[in-house]
């Protein structure tokens, strides 16, 4: 092969490699992939979190995952605009003179005014009923686990005539979120880790991101309509048997036999996040109200809020107006 031709081919390969890197890098940083945005995929960036041969935690992480995430997203949020421990969003665009509230709540505190009567008295799926945000955080009464401890993914698995409540899984931040960015809304994994789902749910990212709200009732997201459309299907990748298109037909499952409709895809309708928050809720539920709750696997019913947004039966009253 002539030397000139060989040089041209070698240059072409190099240019092609750079192009691939640029394309991959741009894709990864387009959805707030937190550790590559603006940096591109270069080894130096990877090394902030990873070690190839001397990692001390799974996924080749230098340190345990949740502690690593909290370094930026924990209290103080020294490297991010979202404090998932306190349920605070710092993005100034949503600030109204007091801390913005993460709509997913927080893992230790949340800012939901879950006792607000104005939210409970609204009916007919009217999101105009305002559930104000607290001026300061209240301790959560229920939350998804992020400390890698084992917990039950309620309803996980197919419809079963034999009593089966779900399966034990280990959860951390990376179970649901992909820290490298993946083009999905809130970098949600199409299939949460250990979910056992056979197919994933893709929720396209929004160009304008809204992580906070001044109104917890308003779970709409005009910037990401796909979130409302697909969020129940996404939650059901783990909580498989909670997904129901009707409230009136028995499922045939020994545990999740009759279920509230959860699959509506329009704004303000019955889907998972209309009633629940994703991270943690500070709502209170009287113990007496949950003593009769069918308690999976013998776990005693307690005052936990089950990630509900509003105190006691307020969540029901958001839609079902009392006469």
């Amino acid at each position, binding site marked *: 092969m002539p030397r000139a031709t060989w040089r041209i081919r070698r240059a072409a390969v190099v240019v092609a490699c750079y192009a691939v890197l640029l394309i991959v890098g741009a894709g990864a940083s387009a959805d707030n992939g937190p550790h590559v945005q603006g940096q591109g995929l270069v080894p130096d960036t990877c090394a902030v979190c990873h070690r190839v041969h001397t990692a001390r935690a799974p996924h080749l992480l230098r340190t345990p995952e949740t502690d690593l995430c909290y370094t930026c997203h924990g*209290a103080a949020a020294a490297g991010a605009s979202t404090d998932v421990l306190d349920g605070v969003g*710092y993005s100034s665009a949503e600030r109204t003179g007091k801390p913005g509230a993460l709509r997913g709540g927080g893992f230790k505190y949340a800012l939901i005014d879950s006792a607000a009567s104005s939210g409970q008295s609204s009916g007919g799926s009217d999101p105009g009923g305002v559930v104000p945000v607290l001026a300061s955080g209240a301790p959560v009464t229920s939350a998804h686990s992020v400390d890698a401890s084992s917990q039950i993914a309620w309803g996980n698995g197919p419809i079963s005539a034999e009593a089966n409540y779900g399966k034990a899984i280990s959860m951390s931040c990376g179970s649901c979120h992909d820290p490298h960015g993946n083009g999905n809304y809130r970098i949600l994994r199409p299939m949460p880790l250990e979910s056992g789902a056979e197919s994933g749910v893709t929720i396209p990212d929004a160009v304008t991101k809204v992580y906070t709200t001044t109104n917890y009732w308003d779970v709409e997201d005009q910037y990401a309509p796909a979130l409302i459309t697909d969020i129940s299907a996404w939650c059901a990748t783990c909580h498989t048997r909670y997904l129901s298109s009707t409230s009136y037909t028995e499922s045939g499952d020994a545990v999740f036999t009759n279920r509230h409709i959860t699959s509506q895809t329009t704004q303000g309708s019955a889907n998972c996040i209309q009633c629940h928050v994703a991270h943690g809720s500070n709502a209170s539920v009287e113990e007496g109200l949950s003593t009769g709750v069918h308690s999976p696997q013998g776990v005693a019913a307690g005052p936990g809020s089950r990630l509900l947004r509003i105190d006691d039966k307020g969540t029901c009253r958001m839609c079902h107006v009392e006469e």
Partner: protein
Amino acid sequence: MTTEKESSAAVADLLHDAGEAGRADAADQPRLTDAARKRRRRKIAALGGIGVALAIVILIIIRALSGSNPLPSIPSELPHHVSDIYGVNQPMGVAVSPSGDRVYVTESEGSRLVRVFDSSGHQIGTLQPNSGNGSFRLPVYVAVSPKTEEVFVSDRLREAIDVYSPSGKYLRALRPPGSSSGKANPLGLAFGPEGGLYMTDVGGSRQNHRVLVLGGSGSKSLRTIGSRGMFWFPNGLAVDGKGDLYVADSNDGRVAIFNPAGKLVSAIARGVGEGDLALPRGIAISGDRLFVVDTTAQTVKVFHLHGNVAELPTYIGSFGGEGIGNGQFRYPNGIAIGRNGRIYVTDRQNARVQVWEY
């Protein structure tokens, strides 16, 4: 050959040396010959020398046991771990009073107080603003004015810098305006040689992140350092005696270095090589040394400053390492150096402040 008289004199001499001579009547003592006098002088001199040597050895032992080192030593390139201060929940920032007798530590969990310790590590008080429960206040970084000894504490959650008197009385809150709207989100704090208060503002997107210089009382903004988009969650700050500014540009993984005019002149960059940074947070200067807390590397990196701000600091080495043992870190964050050279490092996940010294 020894005469009888000389033998008598020698015996008397020995008796005298043994302390017996004191009991003898001086008048009864025989006259000493010149040779005997010389021997006596040599013995006295020898005994005196031994006594002085013994005194020196005893003095050295006593001073060594009392903790101070009277012997000149070769300065070590890196400090060693001395002790820990416990009783802080997820500590983030740390500062030392100019006299070195007080150590201020911010905690980001639990009661979220600023805890005040004496130089021995005993807690002597706490600081908190007048209002706000535990979850609504969030002290992050702390700095002490070298002139007034007032204590300045950044609280991003409250969008404020809280100011306390040296006696711990809450004085006021500073709330500088944000770069585009609202209030600034303060994080890192440091005082310059002219008395100005430097702070990092991480409000809004990275386009709005910046370094602000406030007047000594913090009442007004004097100037802004850094162009739009230059910083990404700047955390710790340090200003040397000439006014050169060192910014831990955390999410960019670098330390940005500015001359007193505010011009970026050099930077220690992110990377995987010796002395490269990962996620720098706290930063401090002592003499010709720059200390950078590299949070995810679980170490403190030490650099030599050349005196010319445009010349990139030379990496000396690092101390720490990941773990829960003595001298090991789990997500260190803040750093401060006292007048006595003691180095204080907040060890967040181990819930302690580590004390190091040379």
